[in-house]
């Protein structure tokens, strides 16, 4: 029998704690495969956030740190500055990165910190049971926006790629989608490129994954993908915002 898909070496044999149909698992896999492909498993370190992916420190098969809520880019900065020969990434949700951790991500990006940041945008706080995130869409109902997100009161959702794209230092910024097979193939290319740039010491690289949270959206997994395609992608348009390594 031909083996067509095995667990990447960069993932440990530990079952994921994610709900059925959650896209966090796909994001993990893409990152792990890319690290394997670039031969970095022995020189990699990751920083897990506080969110559903809080246990990411158990899942990746190299040294990992678990940060306080929102502080992963600062922790990654510390690791990278202390061990410049290692390659460092953070993995963060939208509440973690774009609410409580806004200062840390903006300043890590602004310093052009030599780290990769993988950002899972599911428009909600998954871990804590479905509260409003900074990326929650206008009028979307959550447990803390029970009457829908009122943009006049609480503002519009934050587009993080666009925000970081105003800074001079970042080397590579791309938004991808995890909502279909072909999208995932594209996403894989972007992740691989970020890891490659990280390996080459080029600078700050940032990938946003447009994702789903079937559990807290209250939509079954397959329909959640459709819902996200119809509602998330028009607001969070996939694309390359910055690629300083692209051929002229």
């Amino acid at each position: 029998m031909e083996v067509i898909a095995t667990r990447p070496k960069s993932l440990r044999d530990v079952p994921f704690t994610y709900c059925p149909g959650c896209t966090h698992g796909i994001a993990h896999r893409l990152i792990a495969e890319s690290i394997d492909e670039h031969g970095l498993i022995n020189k990699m370190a990751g920083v897990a956030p506080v969110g559903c992916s809080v246990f990411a420190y158990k899942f990746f098969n190299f040294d990992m740190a678990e940060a306080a809520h929102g502080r992963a880019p600062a922790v990654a900065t510390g690791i990278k500055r202390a061990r410049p020969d290692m390659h460092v990434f953070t993995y963060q949700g939208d509440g973690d990165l774009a609410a409580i951790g806004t200062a840390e991500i903006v300043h890590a990006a602004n310093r052009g910190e030599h780290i990769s940041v993988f950002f899972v945008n599911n428009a909600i706080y998954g871990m804590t049971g479905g509260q409003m995130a900074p990326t929650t869409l206008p009028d979307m109902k959550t447990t803390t926006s029970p009457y829908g997100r009122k943009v006049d009161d609480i503002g519009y959702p934050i587009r993080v790629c666009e925000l970081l794209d105003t800074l001079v230092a970042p080397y590579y910024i791309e938004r991808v989608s995890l909502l279909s097979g072909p999208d995932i193939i594209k996403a894989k290319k972007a992740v691989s490129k970020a890891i490659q740039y990280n390996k080459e010491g080029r600078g700050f690289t940032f990938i946003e994954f447009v994702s789903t949270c079937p559990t807290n959206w209250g939509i079954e997994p397959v329909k959640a993908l459709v819902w996200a395609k119809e509602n998330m992608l028009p607001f969070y348009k996939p694309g390359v915002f910055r690629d300083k390594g692209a051929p002229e």
Partner: protein
Amino acid sequence: MSKVLMKGNEAVAKAAINAGCRLYFAYPITPQSELIEYMAKMMPTVGGTFLQAESEVAAINMVYGAAGAGKRVMTSSSSPGISLKAEGMSYLAGAQLPCVIINVQRGGPGLGDIQPAQGDYFQATKGGGHGDYRLIVLAPSSVQEFADMASEAFDLADKYRNPVMILADGMLGQMMEPVDFKPAKTDQEIEAMGHQHESWCIHPNQDGDLKHHHEINSLEIDPVVLEKHVTKLYEKYAQIEANETRHELYNINDDNEILVVAFGTASRVVRSAVDELNAEGKNIGLFRPITVWPYPYEELAKCIGPRVKQVYVFELNTGQMVEDVKIAVNGKVPVNFWGRVGGMVFTPEQIKEKLQACF
């Protein structure tokens, strides 16, 4: 009014609204999220402000602003989030701003877990943020008491111009018990209350008096002035210590052989054990501090009857309040401690075993 079965998190939120709280700023965290969710749902129905802040740091500073503007304002969180509020609490105390902060404690340190614990006792009662200051800290043990404390906390905050913390835990936040709510303050009462701080707070200068100038501030760059300010704070704290200690006595009498001390939900588990042992012919008294700052030292000292062989303290931490108990007992009898941590809650059977070993 008839009783309703409600979770602690929701009951305290409803009671706060009844007490005239019209501004609430917070950030989600387990096991207090029902509180923020209740506020999200109900504040708009009473014309109040609910705002989910981008962080606990922002939330507590929104509280600083609203309290500085003289309004009843509240925030809530659980342990890791309370740490982030510590800076703001120090500023609030320094600037003498009334507000209510709820801590639905969980296991720590660090990210810890989300099960009930009492590990933030030191943080709550000994300051928590930097500098010399005190929060008034109330420790409820039932959903009814949790709810009742909302209005008491606001009254104390207003009376002393000081932040008040309600130190609850995940068990109390998550559990449901029947609650009787005090009648809600009317709009007129709230309006009237809104003027009580106008001698110092930020508010419109109605009569256009050019001398009107209020500062909400904790900075005193001149050490002579700062010393005076901190001394004044301490005079206030002494007054609170003299007037505001609260406690509950359970089976305290001259024949007590052991005196048990416990606070919050832990005291309920302990009470079950005490009941069972007393039914078996032992004589154990239970002292429950309700204010943990100011601590009821004198009241506790008075409960050490002539036959008390030892004082036993039970907490859901590695031994924090026991230090205050030792101050109160002052060497009169031995003080013993046992606790569980990490979000593990002791059972009445375990407490019973510990107490039985004393006879």
